[in-house]
């Protein structure tokens, strides 16, 4: 197990290096160089040259790359032009907010997906199975912003059950701890529910098909032949084995999850990394763009590392295969 983890750690570090490199070169080799982000009618040739020197863009690309990479490794991620603060500090305070939203969303996604998938599999072929499958196809095909538009308009604007946006109420910092926590949960509820529901269609499918697949396996027949109760066969023997691919899926689905959370962050003004990069691009704040893309890449690498380790822990065959 330890060897497996070490090995995966090594390849994760390599992946992270790749992501940083690719991000840097993609942005720098784009026609018109990064300065194009500053384009405006008042830009003169002199000013452009000045900016080019300021950002070190007049040096050869390889030299820029190595100095950027060493700065990133030292934790110096450039200086935000719009916010006049180090980009790393901006992202550092945004990261927990994104993590909170993503974890809440993933929890909703898997709880709802598991429940619906389980019901559909147990009642395979019934009316309810059909309805769940149609629902999951619809959710799977529905863009997350459509769901969010309707939910915001109805639940937040018309009926005012949830706050429209932001993470805290005004003056929430003066509230006692418990009230603050409740305030946060109240703000978190709608975005995480939308994030979870918009993505649970695929989980329903996964759980349903996985369970049906497992139910036909020999060891289930054996368990049943031993006289175990149907519920024990389902919960202990079938579900555990059906869930392993779900863990594997999690690692692959992370980039898609992050893009979903970006849209939700933008629509709810949720102060996370996604909103930071959205604003940075709109304000032409190039160091933050570069830093947050790299950070998001790092989050994906870490997430899939966690998924792999978890999967190896659950399934000995994976451990031995590598």
């Amino acid at each position, binding site marked *: 197990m330890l060897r497996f983890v070490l090995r995966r750690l090594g390849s994760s570090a*390599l992946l992270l290096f790749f992501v940083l490199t*690719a991000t840097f070169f993609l942005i720098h080799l784009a026609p018109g160089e*990064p300065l194009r982000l500053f384009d405006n009618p008042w830009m003169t040739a002199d000013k452009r040259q000045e900016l080019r020197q300021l950002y070190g863009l007049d040096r050869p690309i390889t030299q820029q790359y190595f100095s950027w990479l060493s700065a990133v490794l030292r934790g110096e991620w450039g200086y935000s032009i719009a916010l006049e603060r180090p980009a790393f500090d901006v992202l550092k305070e945004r990261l927990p907010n994104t993590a909170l939203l993503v974890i809440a969303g993933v929890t909703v996604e898997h709880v709802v997906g598991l429940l619906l998938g389980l019901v559909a599999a147990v009642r395979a072929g019934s009316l309810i199975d059909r309805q769940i499958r149609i629902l999951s196809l619809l959710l799977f095909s529905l863009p997350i912003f459509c769901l969010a538009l309707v939910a915001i308009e109805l639940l937040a604007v018309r009926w005012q059950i949830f706050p429209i946006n932001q993470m805290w109420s005004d003056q929430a910092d003066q509230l006692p701890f418990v009230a603050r926590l409740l305030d946060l949960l109240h703000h978190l509820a709608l975005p995480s529910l939308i994030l979870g529901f918009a993505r649970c269609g695929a989980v329903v499918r996964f759980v349903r098909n996985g369970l049906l697949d497992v139910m036909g396996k020999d060891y289930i027949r054996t368990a049943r032949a031993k006289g175990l109760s149907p519920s024990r066969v389902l919960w202990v023997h079938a579900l555990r084995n059906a869930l392993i691919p779900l863990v594997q899926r999690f690692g692959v689905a992370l*980039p898609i999850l992050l893009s979903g959370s970006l*849209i939700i962050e933008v629509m709810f003004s949720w102060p996370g990394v996604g909103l930071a990069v959205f604003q940075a691009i709109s304000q032409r704040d190039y160091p933050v763009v570069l830093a947050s893309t790299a950070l998001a890449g790092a989050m994906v690498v870490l997430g899939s590392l966690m998924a792999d380790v978890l999967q190896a822990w659950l399934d000995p065959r994976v451990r031995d295969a590598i």
Partner: protein
Amino acid sequence: MYSKPGSIRGFEMPSSLLLRSGVLLLSILALAGLAAPWISPYDPIEQIDAVAGKHQPPLTVMAAVQLEHGRWRLADRVERSADQLIVERLGRIESYAASEVMNLDDDGVGNRRVFVLGTDKFGRDVLSRLLYGARVSLMIGVLSVALAVAIGIAVGALAALGGKWIDSFLMRFVDGILTIPWIFLLMTLTALFHTDIWMLIVLLGMVTWPPISRMMRAELLSLRKQDFVVAARSQGLGEVWIFFHHMLPNAMTPLIVAATLRVGNLILIEASLSFLGFGVQAPQASWGNMIADGQGVLLSAWWVAAFPSAVLVFAVVAINLVGDGMRDWLDPRKKSVGEA
């Protein structure tokens, strides 16, 4: 229940029916998109009277008054008197001298505008934008998948057949690309490139090929050991010949299914980007930026966002139905999920 072998299959949705309805839906949308310049009632970006035509509900009929210098006024009602035209516009009565109005006829003006699906905030016809949006969205989805499939086949084949080193290098490269959160990168790159549609297709194709190449590689690796490929090789046929005549045709089945499902995925990605303002740029219509136009007026002018959302969901559902249906049809093994 699920314990009886064979019982699951009977309960599977009739996939051929779903496949057929998916194909039908898609063909209608594709035809509508292709024929958009001929069948759309009006110009999708024309704002003939942004003030009076703003947020008109579906099935609104307005009189279009043409003034000098190509200016237009949209009116709820017009009435012709001897030497002038009485116009009811924005709840007020205005009058124009007969000489001012270019399209005057006996009982008013000659032109009318029928907004079947209503208008958006600039008084543009939603139906026309929807049709042109279908053209853009479907074109981006199909062409970027085509690009991704081409790159995916090339890289997958190179990895599977090019030897151990090339294989492990290419697959690590694919792992790396899969790690980059595409929306961050796409947003940045579209902002940098000042996107037009062709650039968008290239960028989307670039982020889509890695999973396809991975699938292609796995498929080719298993085909390489199959008896008919070994037999072909033992007959002395060249590797290139074997690849194109024996392996590629057999690898196409899963590839077509995956590519179909990707088209739906990419249409959603394009819509998300356009919704955020980074994909197809206004005033050009795409379903994504039309939905963004309806943001905030969902209760007062629901038609602006509702129709493009509905069509978007229809399109993606149809593509998913076709993809799933094709998988069941082409690969009967997958159909019998749960059979012992």
